[in-house]
């Protein structure tokens, strides 16, 4: 050590990186990088009023029939994980996206990209799992496609599913429909899927009994819609987690959302895994949960209806919709402070220490 003082005033810092030139993993995170990619590349090219609604499914009207249509490509490593597999994920993901417009999912199509060398037995297990998930959801898989790529060009198999459902006549449910005063309801614990998959990859460095929550939520949604005509928003917080989903809704509805940290249920094992890895459960993926914005006067009735269903047993109120600050999600912390809950930026990365 010397006693010479440093000239720190002259310090500078690095040039920006925009990742505009090639796809990086962060573009698939479901967070802000994904949104930017969609806005700049896809929305710019395909722009139309339906796409611009920005929900996970498209509301269509054809000859008086009010439809909900969605598509989802599924890639997951490993193909089988505690609580589910890529097949169940492929059915539930699309069933849920269709249902989140307040629709009854009816039909799915499925496209398979298979890697040369994939054991048929694995494919059979995935297909059986899809069949049982479709039966539970009450949908039929009515068309499909199969492509095979050379070994090394895919990760076992990828499944893309498209779903069609019928919306309830006259009921507007969508990300832009949240209203100040609405109550925010969450159907159960967050982060289970993300941590279950990390565990199955052997990336936790410890074992856990956490199961993915992957599940079809359409029956839960039916029960909610039966209980109240004043359900304004339904959304499943998948990639990017609850925080990202609520930011999307706040932006679409031009409202604020105030959450109570203590009210958000997190499985203790998920919490422990997140503490160890430096993750925030608010950003960890779910595949069988939904968040709803409901008129305050109907909230208790909707909650009661949810709790009577299998996937809504642990439903709770986690916050409320506010007029201000627009497009912002805030979290009320028990010690009497509040903080901003931002959208996931790029990929979620474990902290160094």
């Amino acid at each position, binding site marked *: 050590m010397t006693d010479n003082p440093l000239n720190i005033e002259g310090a500078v810092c690095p040039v920006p990186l925009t990742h505009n030139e090639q796809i990086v993993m962060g573009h698939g995170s479901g967070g802000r990088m994904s949104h930017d990619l969609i806005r700049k590349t896809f929305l710019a090219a395909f722009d139309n009023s339906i796409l611009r609604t920005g929900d996970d499914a498209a509301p269509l009207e054809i000859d008086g029939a009010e439809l909900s249509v969605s598509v989802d490509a599924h890639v997951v490593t490993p193909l089988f994980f505690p609580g589910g597999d890529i097949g169940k994920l492929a059915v539930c993901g699309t069933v849920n996206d269709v249902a989140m417009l307040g629709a009854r999912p009816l039909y799915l199509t499925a496209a398979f990209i298979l890697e040369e060398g994939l054991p048929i037995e694995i494919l059979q297990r995935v297909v059986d799992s899809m069949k049982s998930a479709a039966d539970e959801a009450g949908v039929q898989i009515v068309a499909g496609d199969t492509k095979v790529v050379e070994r090394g060009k895919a990760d076992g198999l990828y499944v893309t599913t498209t779903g069609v459902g019928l919306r309830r006549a006259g009921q507007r449910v969508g990300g832009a429909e949240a209203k100040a005063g609405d109550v925010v309801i969450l159907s159960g614990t967050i982060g289970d899927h993300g941590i279950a998959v990390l565990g199955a990859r052997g990336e936790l460095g410890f074992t856990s009994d956490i199961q993915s929550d992957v599940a079809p939520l359409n029956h839960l949604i039916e029960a909610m819609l039966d209980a109240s005509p004043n359900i304004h928003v339904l959304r499943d917080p998948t990639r990017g987690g609850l925080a990202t989903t609520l930011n999307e809704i706040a932006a679409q509805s031009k409202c604020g959302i105030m959450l109570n940290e203590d009210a958000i249920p997190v499985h203790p094992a998920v919490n422990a895994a997140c503490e160890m890895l430096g993750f925030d459960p608010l950003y960890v993926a779910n595949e069988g949960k939904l968040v709803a914005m409901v008129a305050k006067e109907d909230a208790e009735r909707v909650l009661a209806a949810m709790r009577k269903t299998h996937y809504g047993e642990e439903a709770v109120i986690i916050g409320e919709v506010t007029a201000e600050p627009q497009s912002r999600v805030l979290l009320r912390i028990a*010690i009497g402070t509040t903080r901003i809950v931002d959208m996931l930026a790029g990929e979620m990365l474990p*902290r160094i220490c």
Partner: protein
Amino acid sequence: MKYVTEYRDAALVRGVVDEIARVTTRPWVIMEICGGQTHAIVRYGLDQILPPSIELVHGPGCPVCVTPLELIDKALAIASQPDVIFCSYGDMLRVPGSGRDLFSVKASGGQVRVVYSPLDAVEIARQNPDKQVVFFAIGFETTAPANVMSVLAARSMGLKNFSILVSHVRVPPAMHAILGSPSNRVQGFLLAGHVCAVMGYHEYPSLAEKYRVPMAVTGFEPLDLAQGILYTVRMLEEGRLTAVENAYARTVTFEGNQPAQKTIAQVFEDCDRTWRGIGVIPMSGWRLRPEFADFDAEQRFDVGYIQTKESPLCIAGQILVGMKKPHDCSAFGKECTPEHPLGATMVSSEGACAAYYKYK
């Protein structure tokens, strides 16, 4: 969760904060040295409930933020080589070098892997004898024991394909540099609990005496932080300016973890180190001792001359030494966001700018 929930108890935290307000009679500037503490303070909004006369400034204790650009460029060059598997802690992937980051290298075909422990990288080396496996060994004293263990493990396993790219930094020389700067405003320090868990706090009384700045060893939960602030304010208010106290006694002892310190000293030696955004701080880093040169990635890979280029907009340097706050930067939240960071302080989850962007 046991041993965590108790330290987030709202009533206990409020009680300590009330006590801070009771003992505070005048303004004080206190620096938390560690990025993990900056993150926790902003995440829990502790700064919102402290008396307004207590100003917390954020120190350079984010290892990702201060890793020098030249070394990141070296990492990018090594990771781009076809026979290399480059392993890193997650946060490092997003830190920009001169025009690229490890994400870009990965997207261009480089084998970049996130590991949770350097021993995972040793295991990757064992499983891939035909590849060179390099671990990016960055960090403060906290990560040093695990990083040196990876070298010792690789040596005992006879691995010839494992090396580490070292950019280790140490807290006391950085505090010395901050306190010795003519523009220093810091009157008291919260010492980094995790660093002290390894090193103890026997290095700090001499610093406190030299600069007459009291210090409290502090943990990372809201109650720990409030406690550390209370200790520091008390020492300041009572004029005990050369005192060093331990507000994290459940983890930290005066001597620290001596077997860990011995192991570090066996593998690392002191060296001058450049801190990104700050400059060279004499004897502020660790490097591999000559007898471990076989495990030194800088010697194993010749990446040629590297010319570095920093953005002139960013004030990360001043933020890292507590002279400025993230909000003082004209680029904050505009040109500079976590997705498109101008400065390393915006990149790491422990960086002050990222904490402000995320929570404030």
